[in-house]
Each structure stands twice: as structure tokens, then as C-alpha cells.
């Protein structure tokens, strides 16, 4: 019970309210308070808050509902709250059922005056006087609902000694009390309550009405409808109605719409009822008006709701559709939705979703099942679906919401989908992402230094070229930028260029130096361009820098040159001039104009030449014509006199110029200089005179010298003759040596062979003959060897030196072949390293190798097999320094011939290279004593050195140091 009534704020107050709250209303005719008509609820709310005794008698059974004041002051017996008032009760209130019926059904108020009630207060019997007022209460629909009883005490009636003035007092007081009570009631209601007299003037208006009018009691009461702001039609309507009520005694009910001072246009339901006097005549018309705007609005809203919903769905710019039932039958789908799925209404409506759009089933079936079983909304973002549109499958991206639609049951009856296709945006984003990726690839491989910044100016990307240039990782550059790498002189200006551009989001370009990873400054030329988002908002800069260090250097060099030229011109007191072939004008530097004593810097060619002294003028003009003629080399060089028009003095001018021609060979311009050489010429002239004088003096001296000279010449001639003869003699000697040895060797050779033949031919030979033959042979051989070696030695310098690339490996192979028999005889081995290819005279190399190997064979130790080792290597710097004869700039090879022969005493290391020097007796070791001398001559002939080292008995090593190339 408490639960039911706790939600009923109108059941308030003390005793009465409390009793009503705990009453089991379900057993009464009124039923549960929650279901009461709102007019009853508000009437009960009013009486329970009022401090005057009041009672509501509701319905045709006059169900009793009263307040505390009524219970304590008026009720003689207990009031059956919630029960019908019986006859006894009505009797106690001095009224009858008939009278109540009049109030209830006809709305005629009824008043019982001066009703006496006796009560015992503090042991004394007190009689009180009351006025009981009965008035009609209406239902929500404006039909008779019940009767309101209001009791007003009039105790003062019993006061004796009436006085004419004071007699009025109680009446006035009673009236005031009545007004106050009435006011209390009607002020609490939002309904408009008012009373007209029969002249249409307001005699009463409650607070709500005054508020609506925006007026006060004083300004509104006693005024007519128009004076209180009613429009003419409205006033006239009410006046007709008042007349009608007055004439018929019947109430009038109507609905009207008019503006409210605060709430704007409102709809009102009103009832005008007659007020009868004691004679039953209508003396006034009372009205009650209720604001039904909200109610009207909700009715209208409710009616329109369904159609509005459909309209809304149909006309919504986003795709919307509604599906019902377990198979998701499409009930509503707007054009946007049909457009999205590529279907028309006939194809889609009243069909199960997955029948019309089978392609979406795999993606959304589970989702829909979830929405339908949990009743929870589902949001899909950039949901990828395949839709068959216009006969072909398309991949689409959709943002959508599935919201469950509830009916009476607990589970959704269907769902509503709101979808928004974002395929374009997603594709665009993909394209942007792709383009971004392409940009990165391009940027990464670009030699241009590319950087990207965001809208705040912070860098977001540097390409590989940047990272390589600065030698810093991306993280570093993104965090700290590269401003610290910029040359201090360029930092501020460049940052300013950038910030100025950033302000207006414009292009920028600038040059600056940046320190690279090798700590060198490189000149970069930067171009920056703003980037914009699709919506046109600024996205930041992209910048590309190119290395212009080389250009910059050239430019600086050029500037330096120009500066040097300018200062040279300045220094040389040169005037410069330019002849423009198109305008025919000569432009002079101010220095030149001063030199010529001409005021104007621009002159015609004739004016320019007019200063030239008459006797030189034709020649100068001719030179100029020649230089500017088609096909000329363009050089102009003239020296001439001018007569300075300012000083009237003659000056000597030296002019130089260069003519320039276009592609067709036509003259375009001549650029040149002019120098005042007057002073020089004067000096020169003086010098020339001096020279002339000296020349004469010199001539005399010269003659003397000439004589001495001739003497010297003849001595010289003699000298060169001697030298020539010496060479000739040398050549002859060499030639002789060659011829002699060549021709000499023939007979000796033959002697040797004949001895051998003879030896073979003689069948029986005694020991003595044999020994003699051997001696002949030995002598012949020795002589032959001697002759051959002299021959070879003589040829070394005789040959015109012609160097060629010689592969020493080939040389050693050839020489080995030559000696293979001898080597074999001594069970010898020759081990050869990889040898170099050098600039050399090939046959001399052959001879060198031949002599050294033959030497090793010749001096091999008889006790052990011969071993020759030939090694080669590049001579290192310190070895090079040891030998002062060598050229420090050349590369030398050191080729060593090491043998295990008898060796020699190191003390003889130098002597062995002397011609005809023998360390051993001829009988011990054959040899001419020429071989090593020839080796030395060959090596020296090639700009090298030869040396030998040895430990006697263990072997010798010959070192040949020879240059790799011959300059």
C-alpha cells in the first residue's frame, strides 16, 4: 500500500493525508489514486495544502475526501474518507442531496450561511458560526465531477451591540475571508479563473490570468476584455457568450487559441458558468480556462508520429531501412538505402534481407543475430561488404548502425539500419596512403634532400639523402631538427624566410650551408611548398634541397674574379666602353668619360671618335671597322692621340676591344677598355732616346766583344771537334771490337770443331797425342769464348736504346732452355719466382740472365747438386734509400739469383764486376772475366744497380735492382 501511495505527491499533509495514503483504495469506488482523473488529483492536492476546512465530494456518490482543518474544526463525527457521504452527514452540513445535485450537475454554487457548530474547547462549550460554500468540480473532460465544500468561520456574528458602521465590518470581514479562501484555492492552480459582471467587466482574475496578461490586480480588475488586451474578435466572442449564459443560465464551453505573454501562442479549453443570486437570477459569469496546448500537441504528435517517422526515413539523406521478423523482412527502405544496395523497392521490400542481398550474409549474419538476441545496438565502421550493384560485384565500405526495434515483448521485433557509404572516402584514403607510400619510395631514392613538416612546422620526415648527408638517424633529426647543422651565418636568415612563408602558407626558397657528416659545409638550395589537406586546410611543408656547393664555389670564384677584374681596371686606371651594334651607341664608364673629357656616358660612335686627333682618326676607324667586320676575330687594338676638349691637351690612348657576334655572324656588341698611356709613352720616348745613345756606346763595346767572342767560338769549335772525334773514335773502337771479334771467332770455332773431328777420326790415339788435342781444343774454346764475350760487351752501348715491355718470366724460360743440358749434367734445379714485366731491352735482359745463370753453373760446388733460386720483389723505401744512385720517384724491382755454389770472399764483392777480373785460376774454373762486367754494364744501362754477397763455400747471391719503367 505504501508503495502505491508513495508515488502520489498530491496525498500530502498530516492526519487526513496520512489516512488517505494508507487506505486500501482498491476496495473503494474511486479505485487506486494513481488512476484518478487529474482534476481530482489536483483538487485533493489543493485541499490537503489548505488551512481552511475543505472537503471534496467526488462523483455521484459524493465520495468524501477532506483536509485536517475540516477534521478538527468542522467534523462532528468521523468522516468516512473514501466512502460515500450518507444522509446524516449531509444533514450535519445543512444541505440535501437535491441541493448537492444542483451544484454537481448544474454547476450552481450553493452557500449555507451562519451555520452554528458547537464544540468543547478546554472544558468550555463554544459555539462557532460558519458559512459553508458548495461549488462544482469538473472532470478532465470538463464534465461534472464532484462538489467542493469550503467552510469559512464567522464567529464575530455573535458579537453584541451592533453599530451602523461596525455592522458593516463583519460583512466586509466575511467577504474578505471568503475572498482569501477563494484566492488560496484558485491561485494554486495553473488554470485561469475569472469572473465577469454582466457588463463584461472582470470582477475577478486569478494570479495565473494576471500573469498571462502581464498585468496586476489594480490595472486589470474592473476593466473589460479589450482593455485587458483581448483582440476584437475574441472580446466579441466572449461578450456574446456572457450574454448567452446570462440569458439562459446555461454554461458555455469552447476552445480558443491566443497568444500568451510568456509562452507564446497557446490553445485553451474554457467554460463559462452562471453565478446565481439568492433569487436564482444570474448576477455574474464565472469562467475557468485550461491550457491544453501540450495535450493538443501530444495528440497531434502521436497522430503524426507514424507518418512522420515514415517520411523521415524516406527522406533521410542517409540510408535507412527497417527490418522485422526472424528472417529480417524489409519493411521500409529509403531511396538512399536502395541506392546504396543497388536495388529498387519492388526488388527489396517485403522480402527477407538475405534473399535480396545474399552477398552480405557472411559478413553480417552473426552481427544481426547478436542484435536480435541481446537487444544491443551495433556500430560498424568502414565495414567492407561486397554489393551487387548494376549487375556487378563491387567492394564497398559502409559506416552503419543496427538498432533493435522493440515491440511489446522483451526481445526486439526487428531492427533498423542507418548506413552511410564511405567507399569514396576509404578509397580516397587508400589512394592517399598509396600515394604516400609512392612518395616515400620516390623520396628515399631521390638524391634531393626531401623533408616533410606538419602544420605546426615540426618535421615529420626526412629522406635517406638527408640522413646520409647529416650522418644522423631519423629519430635525431625529428627530435632536434637540423638547425644546429646550419652554418651560424645562414641560420637566422633562413629561419626567417621559412617563418615568413609559414605565416602566409606560401612557397619559399633559400640558400644555406649545412654541415655534413664529414664536418664540411655544403651549400644547399631549398624549395619549400605548402601541402594542403582535401578540405583545403594547411597540412605543412614539403621541402627539397639540392646540393649547389659546386655552383656556389664557381659563383664565388666568379665574384672573386669580377672583383679582381674591377680592381685591376681601377688599378690600371682603365676606362671601359661598350658599343651596342643595335643602338649604335657607345656607353662609357665614368672614368673613361673623364679621360676623354666627355660629359655624356652615352655617345654615338661618331661623337666617340670625334675626340680622336685628326691625324690618327682614319686609322682608328679602319681598325674598328676591321674588328667588327663579319668573319673577323673581333680583336680591336689601337693606339692613338686624342685632343681632350676640356684641357685641350693631347693625350695618348691605348684602346683594346673584343667584338661579339651572334649565331648568324652579325655584330652584336664590342666591349673594351681604354687607357691613358701618355705618361708611359713619354717615359718610353725618353727611354728610347736613352737607349739610342747607349746603343751607340754599346756598338763600340760590342765590336770588342765580337772579337773576343769569335776567339771563343773557334776554341769551342775545336772542342766540339775533339768531342766529335772522341765519339767517332769510340764508335770506331766499338765497331772494331765487333768486327774483329765477329770475324775472329769463325776460324777459332772451326779449329775447335776440327779438333773434335780429328779426335773422332783417329782410331788409335796415344795418351800424349790425346793430351795435345785436348789442349788445342781447350785453347780454341777459351779463345772463342773470349771473342764472343768481347763481342757482346762491345754491343751493349752500341745499340740504340729502345725499351719495350719485357716479360722476365719469358726471358728466364728461354735462358733455361739454353742451359738445360749443362744444368742436367750437374743434377741441378732452377726455381724461379713469378717475375715482373719491365721496360727493358730484351736481348740485354737475355744476356743478363744468361750470364748470371751461367755464372751459377760455372761456380757450382762439385760436391752437391746445383740449386739456383731466382726471386723478385718490389724494392721498399728503406732499401731504395740505401742506394743513392736510384731515383726516388721510380719503382724498382729487386731480382735475386741465389746459388749454392762455391761462393767468394765478401771482400771481393765489388771486384767481381770488373772486366777481365778473375777470382779463380783459369784451370780451376773456365771463364773470360767479362761476363759479370757485361752484367753490370747492362744493369747500369737500364738505370739499375747490381751487387753480390756470398759466404765462401756456401753459395753466392747476385742482386739486380732494376726500374719497373723507363721514363
Amino acid at each position, binding site marked *: 500500500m505504501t508503495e502505491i501511495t508513495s508515488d502520489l505527491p498530491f496525498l500530502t499533509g498530516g492526519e487526513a493525508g496520512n489516512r488517505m495514503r494508507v487506505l486500501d483504495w482498491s476496495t473503494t469506488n474511486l479505485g487506486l489514486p494513481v488512476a484518478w482523473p487529474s482534476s481530482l488529483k489536483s483538487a485533493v492536492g489543493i485541499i490537503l495544502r489548505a488551512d481552511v476546512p475543505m472537503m471534496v465530494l467526488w462523483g455521484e456518490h459524493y465520495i468524501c475526501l477532506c483536509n485536517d482543518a475540516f477534521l478538527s474544526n468542522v467534523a462532528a463525527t468521523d468522516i468516512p474518507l473514501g466512502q460515500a457521504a450518507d444522509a446524516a452527514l449531509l444533514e450535519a452540513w445543512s444541505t440535501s442531496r437535491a441541493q448537492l445535485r444542483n451544484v454537481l450537475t448544474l454547476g450552481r454554487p450553493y452557500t449555507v450561511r451562519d451555520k452554528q457548530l458547537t464544540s468543547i474547547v478546554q472544558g468550555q462549550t463554544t459555539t462557532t458560526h460558519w458559512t459553508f460554500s458548495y461549488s462544482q468540480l469538473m472532470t478532465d473532460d470538463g464534465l461534472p465531477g464532484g462538489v467542493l465544500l469550503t467552510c469559512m468561520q464567522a464567529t464575530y456574528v455573535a458579537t453584541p451591540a451592533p453599530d451602523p458602521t461596525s455592522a458593516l465590518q463583519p460583512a466586509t470581514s466575511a467577504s474578505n475571508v471568503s475572498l482569501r479562501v477563494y484566492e488560496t484555492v484558485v491561485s494554486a492552480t495553473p488554470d485561469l479563473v475569472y469572473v465577469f459582471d454582466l457588463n463584461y467587466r472582470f470582477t475577478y482574475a486569478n494570479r495565473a490570468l494576471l500573469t498571462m496578461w502581464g498585468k496586476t490586480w489594480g490595472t486589470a480588475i474592473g476593466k473589460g476584455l479589450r482593455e485587458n488586451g483581448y483582440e476584437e474578435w475574441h472580446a466579441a466572442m466572449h461578450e456574446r457568450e456572457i450574454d448567452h449564459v446570462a440569458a439562459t443560465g446555461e454554461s458555455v464551453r469552447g476552445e480558443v487559441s491566443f497568444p500568451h505573454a510568456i509562452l507564446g501562442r497557446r490553445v485553451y479549453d474554457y467554460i463559462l458558468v452562471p453565478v446565481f443570486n439568492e433569487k436564482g437570477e444570474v448576477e455574474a459569469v464565472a469562467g475557468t480556462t485550461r491550457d491544453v496546448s501540450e495535450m493538443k500537441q501530444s495528440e497531434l504528435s502521436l497522430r503524426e508520429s507514424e507518418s512522420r517517422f515514415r517520411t523521415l526515413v524516406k527522406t533521410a539523406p542517409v540510408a535507412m531501412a527497417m527490418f522485422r521478423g526472424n528472417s529480417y523482412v524489409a519493411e521500409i527502405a529509403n531511396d538512399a538505402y536502395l541506392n546504396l544496395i543497388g536495388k529498387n523497392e519492388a526488388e527489396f521490400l517485403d522480402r527477407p534481407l538475405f534473399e535480396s542481398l545474399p552477398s552480405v550474409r557472411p559478413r553480417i549474419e552473426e552481427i544481426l543475430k547478436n542484435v536480435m538476441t541481446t537487444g544491443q545496438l551495433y556500430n560498424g565502421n568502414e565495414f567492407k561488404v561486397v554489393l551487387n550493384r548494376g549487375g556487378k560485384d563491387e567492394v564497398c565500405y559502409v559506416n552503419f548502425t543496427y538498432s533493435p526495434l522493440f515491440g511489446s515483448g522483451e526481445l526486439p521485433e526487428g531492427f533498423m539500419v542507418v548506413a552511410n557509404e564511405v567507399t569514396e572516402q576509404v578509397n580516397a584514403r587508400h589512394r592517399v596512403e598509396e600515394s604516400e607510400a609512392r612518395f616515400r619510395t620516390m623520396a628515399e631514392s631521390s638524391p634531393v634532400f626531401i623533408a616533410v613538416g606538419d602544420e605546426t612546422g615540426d618535421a615529420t620526415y626526412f629522406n635517406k639523402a638527408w640522413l646520409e648527408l647529416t650522418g644522423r638517424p631519423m629519430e635525431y633529426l625529428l627530435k632536434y631538427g637540423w638547425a644546429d647543422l646550419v652554418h651560424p651565418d645562414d641560420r637566422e636568415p633562413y629561419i626567417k624566410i621559412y617563418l615568413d612563408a609559414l605565416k602566409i602558407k606560401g612557397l619559399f626558397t633559400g640558400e644555406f650551408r649545412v654541415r655534413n657528416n664529414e664536418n664540411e659545409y655544403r651549400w644547399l638550395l631549398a624549395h619549400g611548398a605548402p601541402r594542403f589537406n582535401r578540405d583545403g586546410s594547411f597540412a605543412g611543408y614539403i621541402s627539397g634541397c639540392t646540393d649547389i656547393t659546386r655552383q656556389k664555389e664557381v659563383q664565388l670564384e666568379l665574384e672573386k674574379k669580377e672583383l679582381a677584374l674591377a680592381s685591376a681596371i681601377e688599378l690600371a686606371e682603365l676606362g671601359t666602353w661598350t658599343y651596342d651594334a643595335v643602338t649604335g651607341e657607345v656607353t662609357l664608364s665614368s672614368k673613361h668619360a673623364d679621360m676623354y673629357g666627355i660629359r655624356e656616358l652615352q655617345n654615338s660612335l661618331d661623337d666617340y671618335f670625334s675626340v680622336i686627333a685628326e691625324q690618327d682618326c682614319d686609322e682608328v676607324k679602319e681598325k674598328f671597322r676591321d674588328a667588327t667586320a663579319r668573319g673577323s676575330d673581333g680583336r680591336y687594338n689601337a693606339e692613338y692621340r686624342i685632343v681632350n676638349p676640356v684641357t685641350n691637351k693631347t693625350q695618348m690612348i691605348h684602346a683594346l676591344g673584343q667584338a661579339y657576334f651572334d649565331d648568324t655572324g652579325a655584330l652584336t656588341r664590342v666591349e673594351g677598355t681604354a687607357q691613358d698611356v701618355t705618361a708611359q709613352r713619354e717615359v718610353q720616348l725618353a727611354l728610347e732616346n736613352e737607349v739610342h745613345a747607349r746603343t751607340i756606346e754599346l756598338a763600340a763595346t760590342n765590336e770588342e766583344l765580337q772579337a773576343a767572342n769569335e776567339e771563343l767560338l773557334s776554341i769551342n769549335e775545336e772542342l766540339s771537334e775533339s768531342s766529335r772525334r772522341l765519339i767517332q773514335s769510340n764508335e770506331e773502337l766499338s765497331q772494331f771490337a765487333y768486327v774483329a771479334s765477329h770475324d775472329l771467332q769463325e776460324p777459332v770455332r772451326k779449329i775447335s*770443331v776440327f779438333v773434335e*773431328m780429328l779426335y773422332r777420326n783417329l782410331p788409335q790415339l796415344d795418351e800424349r797425342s790425346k793430351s795435345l788435342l785436348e789442349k788445342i781444343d781447350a785453347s780454341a774454346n777459351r779463345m772463342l769464348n773470349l771473342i764472343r764475350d768481347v763481342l757482346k760487351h762491345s754491343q751493349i752501348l752500341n745499340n740504340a736504346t729502345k725499351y719495350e715491355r719485357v716479360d722476365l718470366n719469358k726471358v728466364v724460360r728461354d735462358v733455361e732452355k739454353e742451359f738445360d743440358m749443362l744444368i742436367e749434367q750437374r743434377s741441378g734445379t732452377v726455381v724461379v719466382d713469378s717475375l715482373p714485366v719491365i721496360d727493358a731491352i*730484351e*736481348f740485354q735482359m737475355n744476356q743478363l740472365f744468361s750470364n748470371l745463370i751461367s755464372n751459377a753453373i760455372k761456380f757450382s760446388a762439385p760436391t752437391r747438386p746445383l740449386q739456383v733460386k731466382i726471386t723478385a720483389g718490389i724494392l721498399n723505401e728503406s732499401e731504395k734509400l740505401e742506394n743513392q744512385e736510384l731515383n726516388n720517384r721510380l719503382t724498382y724491382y729487386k731480382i735475386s739469383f741465389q746459388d749454392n755454389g762455391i761462393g767468394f770472399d765478401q771482400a771481393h764483392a765489388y771486384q767481381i764486376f770488373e772486366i777481365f777480373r778473375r777470382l779463380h785460376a783459369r784451370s780451376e774454373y773456365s771463364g773470360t772475366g767479362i761476363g759479370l762486367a757485361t752484367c753490370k754494364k747492362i744493369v747500369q744501362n737500364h738505370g739499375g744497380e747490381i751487387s753480390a754477397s756470398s759466404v765462401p763455400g756456401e753459395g753466392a747471391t747476385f742482386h739486380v735492382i732494376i726500374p719497373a719503367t723507363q721514363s
Partner: protein
Amino acid sequence: LKSLFLVDDDEDDRDFFLSVFETMRDRVVCETADNGLSAWERLTQTSYRPDLIFLDLNMPVMNGKQLLQKIRGHANLQRIPVIILSTSSNDKTIQDAREAGAADFITKPNKLSVLEHRLKAVIDDPSYFPDLL
């Protein structure tokens, strides 16, 4: 038999060579000429086609170098290998001979045994006698 043609003006030298060839008479047959011209006539005016020619450089009338050039310029003779003989073992002489088209070079020896050794190597060299293979 391998047919050899020895062209040398020096009678002694011809004897030396012939005495060596005599030792391998079962394998070679040798004819001689004493100067370039007589050799040229023998080669061009008869059907004589030796397998190999030994040619001395220093000869009267027509020297070895001139004859070698003629042989190299003759269509029917140019394929015959020529080995140059000389007293001088000067590398330059050898080089010149090779450039003139000589197949090999033999220094005139002062030892018969050396000559035997050298000539034996030539006769045994199959590259000089392709037709006999």
C-alpha cells in the same frame, strides 16, 4: 726419308753439318747449295721440294735474308720451314731472323757434339715434317 737442303757458302760448315747428317743417313737425305742464288735456282727451276731448309745468313751473291724473303714470297715454297744458321748468337740477329719468317735459329757450334744434339732435336721435331706423319 726427310729431305733437307743446306745452303751455306762455308765449305767447312757444310762438312760439319753433313758429317752429323751422315750419322742419321737412314732418316735424312741432304742436298747443299753454296749461295742464295744457286739455291733459289735449284728450288724454282727443278721440282726439288725439300722438307726443311738450313740457311746461312752471310753468303755472297745472295745472302740468307734475301733468299728467305724470296721463299716466303713464293706460293709453292712459302710453306717450307727455314732454319737460320749464323756464327753470331746475337739476340738481335735471332730476332730479325724470326721476323723474316724463320722457323728457328741455330748458332754455328764450336762443338760437333752440341751440333749433333741440336740437329737431332730438329729432325725429331714432328712439326717440321707434317707430311710424313
